[in-house]
């Protein structure tokens, strides 16, 4: 190309490009990212992480999270529990309208729970959270009762966790709500502060403010979600001013974002912890000495430093520190100590053989550890493999795609050890992941069964006052830290990169911030 042609070409391209970039910075608009096409129905099995935050803006639950992550009023203004703990009564907010102008009443709540969440034929998202609920009953147009099989003190907290109420009238006569694309792809109707204006599959979602929102008119007029699957591209968009907020999974991408004066990095937390599950169907792992030894052998601070860039802290149990009122750090600790690990294994009968590898009755200690290609699971598993190898255990890592991994580990439970994570509502109720009833078919991945833990969990669900709840879950935390149904690894920080244009957004965590979007401003 002749050099003299470059000048005019540059001018032409910049004249084409600059107006486009300038438009992206329009005031009273915030632009976020999501990684795939969303489904505008929080209960749909197709609505996953790509849909969660968008649905938080369109739909609302009976409760939402306050700044301390305790449930506070949303569509319900107050609630109470019966003396026997088996009936929860929720008083609904009056004067709330759906985004199509119809009034919100108890019929919608009854429909959302009885016909969607509790309908076993549908397999709705979060259905397993509501196992203690037998049905929901309307007492009047603005009062509902949750009738329970067993006490369920965590109910108000679950109701705030991405579990928006749906309009009954939109689903009238619909057999399968998951195929109603006229609702969950084109015209979702919620009571939230934003409503869908436009959805261009593969490109973007445009939400405009709900001028009739019961909580007042939102200050930000438009919220856009660009659909960008690639994390590097999201970072580039953030740096070029095309996005106002991203959540960062990989800390290696943080470098250039840190030095941008227009951005701020928020270290937030969710109730998220990584673990290693040791399959309790394997008799070797039923010995608590073996479980303790395997945790002692992992240098968790070193992994946090190297793989998470220091953004995280060692986990002590399933209740993360963000549950300030409940979290109890004074439980059994397992600092990195390979010598003690070998000693405990020796007590359990695992002694070094002629080649230095541990064996018992002539059988070497080998562990098959499947891992899936998702986030940093593979390098994390490799590090655990190395630490266990250092104390004489042969770990065979089997890497598969994520889908195959779920089938093998979660569905079939064909594994000996595996590393993954739980991200749960900020409630101390850990029953769905620990109760004996959740072993094999539920989310109790290690298939851990303990009558004592079941009783402690039931006592927690029966707590009536915060003091009772704290005391009950202190015992749960003490028990799980001592018995290690899972080996607790770390609580990672959730890194949120936010443009300084955004005002009024809470830094607690994104689910909480998105439930209070009415307070957002554009600076």
């Amino acid at each position: 190309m002749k050099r003299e042609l470059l000048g005019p070409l540059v001018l032409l391209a910049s004249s084409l490009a600059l107006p486009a970039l300038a438009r992206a910075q329009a005031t009273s608009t915030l632009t976020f990212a999501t990684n795939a096409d969303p489904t505008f129905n929080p209960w749909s099995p197709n609505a996953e992480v790509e849909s969660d935050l968008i649905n938080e803006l369109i739909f609302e639950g009976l409760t939402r999270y306050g700044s301390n992550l305790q449930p506070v009023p949303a569509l319900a203004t107050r609630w109470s529990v019966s003396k026997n703990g088996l009936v929860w009564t929720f008083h609904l907010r009056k004067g709330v309208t759906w985004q199509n102008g119809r009034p919100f009443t108890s019929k919608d709540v009854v429909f959302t729970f009885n016909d969607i969440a509790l309908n076993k034929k549908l397999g709705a998202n979060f259905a397993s959270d509501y196992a203690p609920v037998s049905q929901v009953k309307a007492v009047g147009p603005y009062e509902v009762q949750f009738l329970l099989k067993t006490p369920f003190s965590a109910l108000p907290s679950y109701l705030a966790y991405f579990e928006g109420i749906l309009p009954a009238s939109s689903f009238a006569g619909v057999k399968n709500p998951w195929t109603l694309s006229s609702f969950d792809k084109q015209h979702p109707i919620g009571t939230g502060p934003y409503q869908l204006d436009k959805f261009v599959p593969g490109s973007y979602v445009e939400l405009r403010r709900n001028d009739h929102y019961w909580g007042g008119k939102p200050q930000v007029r438009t919220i856009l979600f660009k659909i960008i699957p690639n994390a590097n591209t999201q970072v580039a968009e953030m740096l070029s001013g095309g996005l106002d907020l991203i959540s960062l999974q990989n800390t290696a991408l943080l470098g250039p974002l840190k030095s941008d004066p227009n951005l701020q990095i928020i270290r937030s937390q969710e109730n998220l912890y990584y673990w290693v599950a040791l399959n309790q169907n394997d008799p070797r792992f039923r010995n608590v000495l073996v479980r303790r030894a395997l945790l002692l052998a992992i240098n968790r601070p070193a992994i946090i430093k190297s793989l998470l860039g220091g953004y995280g802290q060692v986990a002590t149990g399933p209740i993360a520190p963000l549950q300030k009122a409940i979290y109890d750090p004074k439980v059994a600790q397992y600092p990195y100590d390979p010598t003690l690990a070998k000693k405990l294994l020796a007590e359990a009968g695992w002694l070094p053989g002629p080649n230095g590898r541990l064996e018992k009755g002539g059988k070497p200690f080998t562990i098959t550890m499947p891992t899936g290609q998702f986030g940093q699971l593979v390098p994390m598993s490799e590090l655990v493999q190395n630490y266990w190898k250092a104390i004489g255990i042969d770990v065979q890592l089997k890497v598969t795609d994520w889908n195959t991994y779920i089938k093998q580990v979660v569905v079939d439970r064909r594994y000996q050890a595996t590393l993954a994570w739980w991200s749960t509502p900020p409630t101390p109720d850990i029953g769905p992941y620990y109760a004996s009833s959740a072993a094999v078919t539920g989310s109790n991945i290690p298939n851990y069964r303990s009558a004592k833990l079941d009783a402690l969990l039931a006592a927690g669900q029966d707590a009536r006052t915060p003091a009772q709840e704290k005391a009950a879950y202190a015992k749960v935390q003490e028990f799980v830290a001592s018995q290690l149904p899972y080996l607790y690894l770390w609580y990672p920080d959730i890194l949120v990169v936010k443009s300084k244009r955004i005002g009024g957004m809470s830094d607690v965590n994104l689910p909480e911030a998105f439930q209070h979007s009415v307070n957002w401003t554009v600076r």
Partner: protein
Amino acid sequence: MLGYLSRRLLQGILVMFLVSAATFFLINLAPGGPSSLMNLNSTAQQRAALEQQLGLNRPIFLRYLNWLGAALQGRLGNSLSQGEPVAPLLAQRLRHTALLAGTALLLVFIFGVALGIWSARKRGRPIDHLVGLVSTLGMSLPEFWLGTLLIMLFSVRLHFLPASGMLTVGAPWSLSDLLVHLLMPALVLSFVLLPNVVRFARSALLEVMEADYVRTARSKGLRERAVLLRHALRNAWIPIIAMLGLILPQLLSGSVVVESVFAWPGMGRLAVQAAMNRDYPVIMATTVLAAAIVILTNILIDLLYSLVDPRVVHA
């Protein structure tokens, strides 16, 4: 000619049938399942309910026959992860991919042939080596790396081009907006395909430049430009056209990566998402459609031979 065309089309239909059967059985027999079922948080009860709803508990042969019967009537089913009919989903994305791939192909064709000719004419000189070096670079650089590099340069550093998407979100449609969004992905896609065409064009031209009829043309006193354009290039077209047919599958697979890097809402991205979500109807539709595009393009290229070279006769 008509007989030849019918034979090729029948062969194409058979290939598409085999592709559809192989794809269907491979994806359905692979461990795992649609992402709505294979969710870390799903319980056995939730999975059983969804399996029933999606009909995945029926025998696999029956499901294939159902799919085939419906596909022959133009019904491609509903996406398992989107809940929407596959055909309109695909039609929309195909248009976007056609725009990106078509632009890239045009750039590849124009610049590939031009650079090939230039390189052939300057054989052994520094410019020939430079073109060879750039070609090698193009063949070695992965699309995702080059794409990210360009985004960092033109979007992040220079604020010159948008980093992703097909149009500015929230802005009215305009051709200039589309072009600035198209520029980087099309360049990346064409850059990685360019070397094939450059090298083919160069070697094809070098071969014909040694031919007797070129020597005759030169000895008649024709100017070099006329020798090149009227005599040499015309005979070099066949391998170049054949090459364009061969790079089509590369173009389609390249667009998968480029669309993901630049968040271009095309068929490639849809296919990747479908593969990750095990969205069987979408995987089937994108695979069969890609096979149809490759088969039809190859038939078209075979027909083009006879237009370019009258000696080629299809009987």
